[in-house]
């Protein structure tokens, strides 16, 4: 197993290199110019050119790419064109809020979606099944920002239970941390819950028709034990897969959610950097996201071995 994990980690290197080249090339050919944004609306073309030169943006593509790769190899993601702060420090500032949002959303999803899917499969064709699947369609169909605004209106403005926006670090207390994450996590989690609930239902339906389930019933096992101990474990592989794929969805959804709830996370940093053409920041974030994605896939493969002993690497 250990050698498999090491091989997979080594295999991420060419993937990351291709991502790096792709991102750098894309940004190089994309329209827009950070020097123009920095110089402001009243700047003369000469001012813009001077700033472009001072940022090194007038150098040839290969020179810029080479110096960027050289820095990356030395563990340096570069410095933001706009803030003059190291990209790694900016990412570090934003990692906490995004990780918090993703963890709470992930927990919420697993706690809500898996039982819903199991119950829907158990009661397949019944009113309960239809209600749960109806909710799933609803969750799929509503954009994150619409759910976000609705939740903020009801639970923050009308009921005054929760804040509209912001983020409080965990170090300042559990409740201050959690209260800022509840609405965003629910908004972001809706699509995810719908997805996981549907997959769980489908996987469970297949498993529940297996002979060993019938045997378990014949032995007189309780419904809960059959569903959650025997059936769910055997249906877990596709569920784990979709949870893993969903993390990519969460990264995308975090961009919108963090804007709607003014959470200072990586999603907002990404948007800000793209709009201003802050190339080093965009490159750093995309590298980070692609690394996380590769890592999540590796973790899923490892989890497979835990839920299904037949799988060996």
């Amino acid at each position: 197993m250990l050698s498999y994990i090491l091989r997979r980690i080594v295999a991420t290197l060419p993937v990351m290199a291709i991502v790096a080249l792709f991102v750098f090339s894309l940004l190089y050919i994309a329209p827009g110019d950070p020097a123009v944004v920095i110089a402001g609306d009243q700047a003369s073309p000469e001012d813009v050119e001077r700033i472009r030169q001072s940022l090194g943006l007038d150098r040839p593509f290969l020179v810029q790419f080479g110096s960027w790769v050289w820095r990356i190899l030395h563990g340096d993601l570069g410095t933001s064109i706009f803030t003059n702060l190291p990209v790694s420090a900016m990412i570090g500032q934003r990692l906490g809020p995004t990780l918090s949002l993703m963890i709470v959303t992930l927990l919420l999803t697993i706690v809500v979606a898996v039982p819903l899917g199991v119950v829907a499969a158990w009661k397949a064709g019944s009113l309960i099944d239809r209600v749960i699947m109806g909710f799933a369609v609803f969750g799929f169909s509503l954009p994150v920002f619409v759910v976000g605004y609705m939740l903020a209106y009801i639970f923050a403005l009308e009921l005054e239970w929760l804040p509209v926006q912001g983020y409080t670090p965990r170090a300042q207390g559990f409740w201050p941390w959690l209260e800022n994450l509840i609405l965003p996590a629910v908004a972001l989690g809706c699509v995810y819950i719908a997805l996981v609930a549907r997959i769980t239902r489908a996987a469970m339906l297949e498993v529940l028709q297996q002979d060993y389930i019938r045997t378990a019933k014949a032995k007189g096992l309780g419904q809960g034990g059959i569903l959650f101990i025997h059936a769910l474990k055997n249906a877990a592989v596709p569920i784990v897969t979709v949870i893993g794929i969903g993390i990519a969805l969460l990264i995308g959804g975090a961009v919108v959610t963090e804007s709607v709830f003014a959470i200072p996370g990586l999603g907002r940093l990404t948007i800000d950097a793209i709009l201003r053409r802050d190339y080093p920041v965009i490159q750093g974030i995309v590298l980070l996201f692609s690394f996380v994605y590769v890592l999540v896939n590796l973790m899923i493969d490892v989890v497979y071995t835990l839920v299904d002993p037949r799988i060996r690497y």
Partner: protein
Amino acid sequence: MDRRTVLKGLAGAGSLALTGGLSAPAIAQGAAARTLRFVPQANLANFDPIWGTQYVVRNAAAMVWDTLYGIDSSFRPQRQMVESEEVTDDGTTWTFKLRPGLKFHDGEPVLSKDVVASLTRWSARDPMGLMIKALQQELTAVDDRTFKWVLKQPFPKLLYALGKNNSPCSFIMPERIAQTDPFKQISEYIGSGPLKFAKSEWVPGAKAVFEKFADYSPRQEKSSWLAGGKQVMVDRIEWVIMPDPATAAAALQNGEIDWWENPIADLVPVLKKNKNINVDIGDPLGNIGSFRMNFLYPPFNDVKARRAVLMALSQEDYMRAIVGDDNSLWKPLPGYFTPDTPLYTEVGGEILKGKRDLDAAKKLLAESGYSGQPVTCLVAQDQPITKAMGDVTADLLKKLGMNVDFVATDWGTVGSRRAQKTPPGQGGWNMFHTWHAGADCVNPAPYTAIRANGDKAWFGWPTSAATEKEVASWFEAKNIDEEKAAIGRLNKAAIDDVVYAPTGFFLSYTAWRKNVSGVAKGPLPFFWGVSKSA
């Protein structure tokens, strides 16, 4: 006790049980009242007011760095860091003396050498600064509190240049910081203004914090814009960046923020209904909408084509597209200068007044030789103002019979593409939309967009010798009457040659909670004099 309190209590108890730790204590009411939470117009992405000239940087910088003079609400420069000044009879040698006791945030005294270095850096980037630099013979520190500026010829607007609120302002920094290349960003944010920048708490794109500077010695005069006594009434000002206007509106209603600089027009009715919120015009100098035509290529290299567009455009259409049905938010603008300011004029603006004459405009366009070639019109879709104006312009050009190549893109792309001097079909353009802060259009000094010196002019590169002649006349004017006369002639010349197309004058609101007082109207949010009760 409301449900939120109960929930908090339950969660707190749960947290205690689970983690064995204690939640952070709630901020005491007094401390909360000493912190003003403000949502600015944009993200404070950098904090060098000379290197980055965006308005949001200028607004934050005005708290941290002080200026030698400050423009008051009558547009007059008043002494700020300066105690006294003397000028020789020929107007070429200025000697300034600094106020005693001025200190930087690191505790060091403000000295003449700091001023000299700061003015040197500023004058390399600012349009007025560049003019002064061209006339400069020497700028030297005489002693710790005295410095001298010797010019080759008089520059009557010198004090205005040192006090103006247009970006970049001549902020005074410590010498070691001011010696940074003006085209490179500073990394220390030490000023001598009434508030200190808390760099350790800065999260670009999310938060910026400013703390009251205990050693600041404000002037005794009443504050007026950048002039007078800058008395800070709170201990801490937190800028909370909110990209989403709906979130900002909800946060203001919920009391999570205290002041929102520029609520969008769509949300103002909701805010006005809230009994805890004040809504008023924030900046009486407003904005001037505009689109610029490229003088280098057909059809707009011909003044007849430019005049045809001006003759046909309805400013009301543009303004309603921007501000909606609120008539108090806009005015027609048959000229280029900010309404209700001393130099405002409508001389020469007849072409923009009265019923629009589409037939005459079409005839004039035909006389220009326009033969149906595509007109590349750049429109930034991510800026509501430019998007609204772009849609109106596309309709206008089609009515005139022009073949519109509508390039819907983002502001970043417009910003770089408008600098291209290549032909429209090869990456260039024929027109783009923007707007100008009214504060930048009160006179020609900060007004880059009115200049018409061809290759050196702003994008579109207009050439108009008559316009340039009158800009020079204004700079040389010795009194307000001469200034007004020059501006009248300038307005007429610029409209005759259509330096750019003004689409109207519009205002925007600002909104704050009723427990906040002292919010002043002006071209930027002034934080001195603003207090907050619990």
